């Protein structure tokens, strides 16, 4: 039963990562691409981490899974914000240079 639940979690996590990679290639704009990539880091990886924790089901793995999930959810918005800010500055300087 545990292996079935783990397989379902892993299948959906890998599926969402694949969908966000397709979005990374197909979308036309930087902001749309960032919108697609956020799905992979937040939703797909969360499903994979929960699946791994359910599969091993020991205290240390659950604590590590909680640590990684909290860290990803805290730092993904910071990284996205930093990328968008640098892109805005980059665009402004390019238009001023020309």
């Amino acid at each position, binding site marked *: 039963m*545990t*292996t079935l639940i*783990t*397989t379902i979690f*892993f*299948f959906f*996590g*890998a*599926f969402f*990562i*694949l969908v*966000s*990679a*397709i979005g*990374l*290639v197909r979308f036309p704009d*930087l902001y749309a*691409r*960032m919108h697609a*990539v956020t799905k*992979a*880091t937040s939703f*797909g*990886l969360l499903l*994979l*981490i929960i*699946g*791994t924790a359910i*599969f*091993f089901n*020991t205290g*240390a*793995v659950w604590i*590590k*899974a909680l*640590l*990684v999930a909290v*860290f*990803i959810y805290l*730092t993904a918005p*910071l*990284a996205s914000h*930093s*990328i968008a*800010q*640098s*892109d805005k*500055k*980059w665009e402004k300087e390019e238009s001023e240079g020309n």
Partner: protein
Amino acid sequence: METISNIALLPIFGMLLLAFLLAFFRMLKGPEITDRIVAMDMIASVTMAFILSYSILVNKAIYFDIVIVISLISFIGTVAVSTYLKQKK
């Protein structure tokens, strides 16, 4: 502890490999440098997913530590490159 058969893990590895190839294509092609940073972030996520799947495949929980380290290093790398771009004249 029972193990998952390799046949169940095969499509998961296939999907992750395809996602890695698509992100790598975007990293090679990306018109702006910020697109490349986004693709690099995506590649770090796909690598973390690969290592989680591999830890299920070989049935060892010690591989979870690699995921912690990659999540730390990927965040620091993304912030470092974008801060460098922000301060560049």
